């Protein structure tokens, strides 16, 4: 398999391709931050997509073989050719291009992603109107959920301003953007009406609630460095717990139970 022929999956935002620095003369200069790539197409590559085929012995997978000398990889002992450490590269400098929040009026199966800029991601409240429930995860992997009726699961993520990082407020789910650096990801499960996302400054966009084949919308919001990315996913009808599980949310067990101890 030619790994270099693979192209990024624009629909999988939480995975990114890491390129090992090389010591070839064409590599980036030590300490220099590579420029953001702008030549990545959003159209899916013909060869991309998940495959359940068994990999061939010569293709991929972990190998316990000792790396050959001179490859420059970790553990090769080839320190002489190893480049000096690069300056830290902010994740947002390596993002594929995506529409901005005001570039589109509606997210759908065909146009599922927008990315907020740093100002939009850090000012005021991100509101999601029309959600039946939300589940969140903060940077400490504290996970919780709440539905529009106020029922909760897991653990809330408080912030310094005495507001929860993600919670329902007046029937809409709210994300406290002053503390966006504590935010890791969240999902917002739609009802039968469109989800409407709004930001400081009155900007708003809608999320189509269903696909023609009856799948329901789940808005997935993740933080990449200082930027929030919004993605519309569509899932078969299911209860909230099944959807949490589908998105990899496992509720944190509360520890503030009353034990009767003094």
């Amino acid at each position, binding site marked *: 398999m030619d790994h270099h022929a693979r192209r990024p999956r624009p629909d999988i935002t939480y995975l990114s391709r890491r390129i090992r620095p090389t010591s070839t003369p064409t590599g980036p200069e030590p300490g220099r931050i590579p420029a953001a790539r702008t030549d990545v197409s959003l159209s899916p590559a013909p060869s991309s997509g998940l495959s359940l085929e068994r990999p061939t012995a010569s293709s991929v997978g972990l190998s316990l073989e000792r790396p050959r000398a001179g490859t420059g990889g970790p553990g090769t002992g080839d320190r002489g050719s190893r480049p000096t450490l690069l300056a830290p590269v902010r994740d947002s400098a390596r993002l594929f291009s995506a529409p901005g929040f005001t570039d589109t009026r509606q997210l759908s199966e065909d146009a599922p992603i927008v990315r907020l800029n740093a*100002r939009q991601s850090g000012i005021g409240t991100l*509101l999601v109107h029309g959600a039946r429930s939300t589940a969140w995860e903060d940077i400490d992997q504290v996970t919780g959920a709440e539905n529009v009726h106020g029922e909760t699961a897991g653990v809330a993520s408080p912030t310094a301003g005495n507001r929860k990082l993600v919670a329902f407020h007046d029937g809409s789910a709210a994300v406290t953007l*002053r503390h966006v650096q504590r935010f890791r990801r969240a999902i917002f499960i739609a009802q039968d009406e469109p989800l409407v996302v709004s930001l400081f400054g009155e900007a708003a966009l809608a999320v189509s609630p269903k696909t023609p084949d009856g799948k329901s919308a789940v808005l997935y919001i993740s933080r990449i460095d200082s930027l929030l990315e919004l993605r519309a996913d569509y899932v078969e009808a299911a209860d909230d717990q099944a959807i949490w599980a589908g998105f990899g949310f496992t509720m944190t067990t509360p520890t503030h139970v009353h034990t009767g101890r003094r």
Partner: protein
Amino acid sequence: MASMIPGSNAALTAENPGLRKVLVAFGWTITQSLGPQAELVPMAIMCGQDGLALSDDHLVFFNQLATPEGSMEFVGADDQEQIDVDLAAVPEDVRKIAFVVYVDPDLRGPGNFGAVKNAYVRLADETHRELLRFDIPSGNQMQVKAMLFGELYRHSGGWKFRAIGQGYQNGLAGVAADYKLAL
């Protein structure tokens, strides 16, 4: 160290020859409450000859840490918030840098400056020697949701700092309108 009053200015580089970088630090205390409380956010905006922001990227706050050319950076350390300015590297078309502190416009009880006490802005050099300090006068600030603390501005080939302390009742939206920022 010089204490400033609203409207006063100080010849920052003339009085400190060789000053290349300046640390602009902000501090305050908030009257604690059990409910949602005001959360203050410092922001620095680079402005051109017309007094407007050079672009939306020419500002720094906690979630946008540096201007494109890197002469102004948001850092956090001893004070609540700090912003570093490399005076020598500030683009020539920047005529002033405005230092604003706004109450985050959260929809759930955003608050105002009424609960804010002992607010100040101070300027220090690279060795953290304090050069200027402006303590925001106390008073009834219940209507204030953002405040222009002061400005660094070019003057006769150098930089001066003006203490201002002007409140905005319309908060960050008013700041955005004044500087033509798309927030």
